[in-house]
């Protein structure tokens, strides 16, 4: 085993103030291996990889990497150039591409001296073409990156690493932005490259990918390496237990029969930012006792639909019927009063007012309620009592209810929003990417509340990019693509994935 080890992280420790992000993490990587690095949000996966790539300097520990003569040599820490030079390539979750220059320029940037008077393009082109044909990663090279699709950008990002002769590739949540088909293609390309001697570490929290595409997996919890195993010996249950520290109950709702329609959109058109993002003559019916899942790659009109149902956007054509009665004033306040509950996509910016306190945010959607105010004067004791009760009931943790809500973590902000929304017993709930970026505990809380609301007789519109979430929760699924809604008859991942990518089934 030692002979083919290409990378060893030995006892890495990283502190940010009082937070111990990585606690004595040790792991190794074999040549030609695909290693999955798993963990909840905040488990320290990205911190660990940023130390490997030299973005952060570890407080203690060291890294050894296979050098030119095949021996393990120590890597200079805290220096991205050194990491690059020793063959580590990193593909960040947020792409590090300049959009105003071409893919070619992004790939070759920094590979030659900045002060050479001319650029040797032909040699570079040849090398890139070689890499593309070996790896199967294809991307147009000569147009600005800003005009490439997300999948293409990711391929450029990987090409960039391979161009710098990376023999260890680190991918941070590579499939978060891809359709299932694109993700499969990515992994098959990676497999092709590992056969050529590349070693891969990929960070993820999607079980399916770990189980189908990795050779070995390492789980981090609270900054510690809590276990590693061959993927062939792993199961979803085992991994989840390692990640959370205890077995979690996977939310799997009982199916119940939907009731009568409560919300219908009739032939609605809304202008979005682009044509692809606009709604064109869409119709939709939501019943009580129903969770309607809207699948699709983001940017296909989901946000416009969410804005419409929240009252933020008005249709220029068509009508919205609430229990058969057309809604006249489509504005946020009126929608709230009519019994709509909204869980917005961007919880930091649209979900809360960060500068206001937790207790103020808890009542911010019903400020004209006479319980809350008297002739425009807020009743602070009522507001604080309310916040105290709800914080306990919904397990919102933070520095205190009188503190600014932006100080809360993402999961607690989402719980604050849940408390505000579900306490009003809304009949219709719009949940836009409600579990994105949340750890398993907070995510299952969110899902539990959605199911409770449905069981109580509400209708839930669940917009999510996470197909597994939709398949697990929704009673009925539609796919959104180019501003259109398409009914889904089968519940197979493949069929839905193809529809998301715009192919007819």
């Amino acid at each position, binding site marked *: 085993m030692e002979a083919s080890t290409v990378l060893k992280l030995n006892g890495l420790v990283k502190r940010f103030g009082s937070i111990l992000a990585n606690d004595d993490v040790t792991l190794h990587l074999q040549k030609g291996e695909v290693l999955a690095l798993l963990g909840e949000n905040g488990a320290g996966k990205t911190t660990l990889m*940023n130390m490997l790539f030299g973005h952060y300097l570890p407080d203690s520990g060291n890294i050894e990497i296979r050098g030119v003569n095949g021996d393990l040599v120590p890597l200079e820490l805290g220096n*991205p150039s050194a990491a690059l030079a020793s063959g580590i390539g990193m593909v960040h979750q947020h792409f590090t*591409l300049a959009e105003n*220059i071409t893919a070619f*320029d992004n790939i070759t940037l920094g590979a030659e001296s900045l002060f050479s008077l001319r650029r040797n393009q032909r040699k570079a082109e040849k090398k890139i073409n070689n890499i593309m044909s070996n790896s199967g990663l294809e991307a147009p090279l000569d147009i600005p990156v800003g005009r490439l699709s997300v999948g293409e950008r990711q391929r450029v990002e990987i090409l960039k690493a391979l161009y710098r002769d990376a023999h260890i590739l680190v991918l941070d949540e590579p499939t978060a932005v891809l359709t299932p088909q694109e993700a499969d293609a990515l992994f098959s390309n990676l497999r092709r490259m590992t056969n050529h001697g590349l070693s891969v570490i990929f960070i993820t929290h999607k079980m399916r990918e770990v189980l189908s595409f990795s050779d070995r997996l390492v789980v981090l919890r609270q900054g510690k390496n809590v276990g590693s195993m061959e993927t062939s010996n792993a199961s979803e249950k085992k991994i989840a237990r390692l990640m959370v520290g205890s077995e979690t109950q996977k939310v799997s709702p009982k199916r119940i029969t939907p009731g009568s329609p409560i919300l219908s959109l009739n032939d609605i058109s809304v202008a979005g930012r682009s044509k692809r993002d606009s709604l064109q003559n869409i119709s939709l019916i939501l019943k009580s006792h129903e969770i309607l899942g809207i699948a699709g790659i983001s940017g296909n009109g989901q946000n416009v639909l969410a804005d419409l149902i929240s009252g933020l956007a008005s249709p220029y054509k068509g009508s919205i019927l609430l229990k058969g009665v057309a809604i006249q004033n489509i504005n946020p306040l009126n929608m709230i009063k009519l019994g709509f509950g909204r869980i917005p996509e961007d919880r930091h910016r649209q979900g809360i007012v960060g500068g206001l306190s937790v207790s103020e945010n808890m009542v911010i959607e019903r400020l004209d309620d006479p319980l809350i105010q008297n002739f425009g004067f807020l009743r602070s004791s009522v507001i604080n009592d309310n916040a105290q009760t709800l914080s306990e009931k919904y397990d919102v943790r933070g520095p205190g209810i009188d503190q600014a809500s932006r100080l809360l973590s993402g999961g607690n902000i989402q719980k604050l929003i849940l408390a505000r929304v579900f306490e009003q017993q809304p009949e219709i709930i719009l949940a836009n990417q409600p579990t994105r970026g949340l750890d398993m505990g907070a995510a299952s809380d969110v899902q539990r509340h959605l199911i409770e609301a449905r069981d109580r007789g509400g209708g839930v519109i669940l917009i999510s990019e996470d197909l597994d979430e939709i398949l697990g929760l929704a009673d009925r699924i539609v796919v959104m693509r180019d501003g259109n809604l398409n009914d889904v008859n089968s519940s197979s991942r493949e069929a839905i994935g193809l529809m998301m990518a715009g192919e007819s089934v």
Partner: protein
Amino acid sequence: MIDILNILLTDSFWAASLRIATPLIFGVLGALICERSGTLNLGIEGIFVVGAMCGWMATWLGAGLWGGILVAFLCGAFFGLIHALLTVPLGLSQHVSGLGITLFATSISYFTYRTALPDVSSPPRIEPFQPLDIPILSDLPFIGLVLFQQTALTWLALIMVLLVWYVLNRTNLGLAIKAVGDNPNSVDAQGLSVYAIRMWAIVIGSALMALGGAFLTMSAFDAFFFGMVNGRGWVCIALVIFASWRPGKALIGALLFGAFDALQVRLQTEMGALVPGQVFLMAPYVLSIVALVIAARSADYPRALLTPWYKGQR
């Protein structure tokens, strides 16, 4: 209308346009380099004053004309370095720092001038740059006067346009400057220093701005006066947007402004009896606002403009 046509057909009008445009060309190029790397430099107005004062004073003290230009260049670079230190590694507000530099640089220039020459009522004159006299070329009809009887500084400005264009579009350095102004992480991830690229861009850009100021005292006039920069720096900030951050368009923008200005001077003499002179004085500014409004709608801002970047924070 006929009056305007007559003016547009004279070679002296075009020669004047290019002459008036020269300081703006330096200024726009300087601002363009700064902004392409992601930093707005509102110190430009003050750096113009510094360039005008230092270049002229160095020459007056005996450094020679090109010595004066070098001094102006270095003084501009120095104020650029202050702005760079405040806005790049420290990440302070680019607006506040830039305006601070303008106030500071302007005042220190006036202060130095008054300290060095406490008693004079009119400033001492230097022998400024003279129009070129190239055999044959300078005697050509029309373009002889327009192009080949300009001073060396105007030619330097035109060469700078080519140089900046070449660096931005044909070299790795230019690639890095463009990339760092769009997404600093792209540069960082390739092992290059975001701070170094941004700071050098600001320093060099500011030095170019100072040359624009130096042109005023060492070529357009032959002495330093209070208030002589008169908003030219701010015009450059607008022209960069008009130019959509491209050197070629920056030249066009500067020439357009120069032409408006040259035209208004001539119209004042021809039609001054009918229309108050202030209307003509105002015209170039109004027209550049109009041009800006039209051009800025489609402007493609460097995405990281005004956004500080901190190492290790992603």
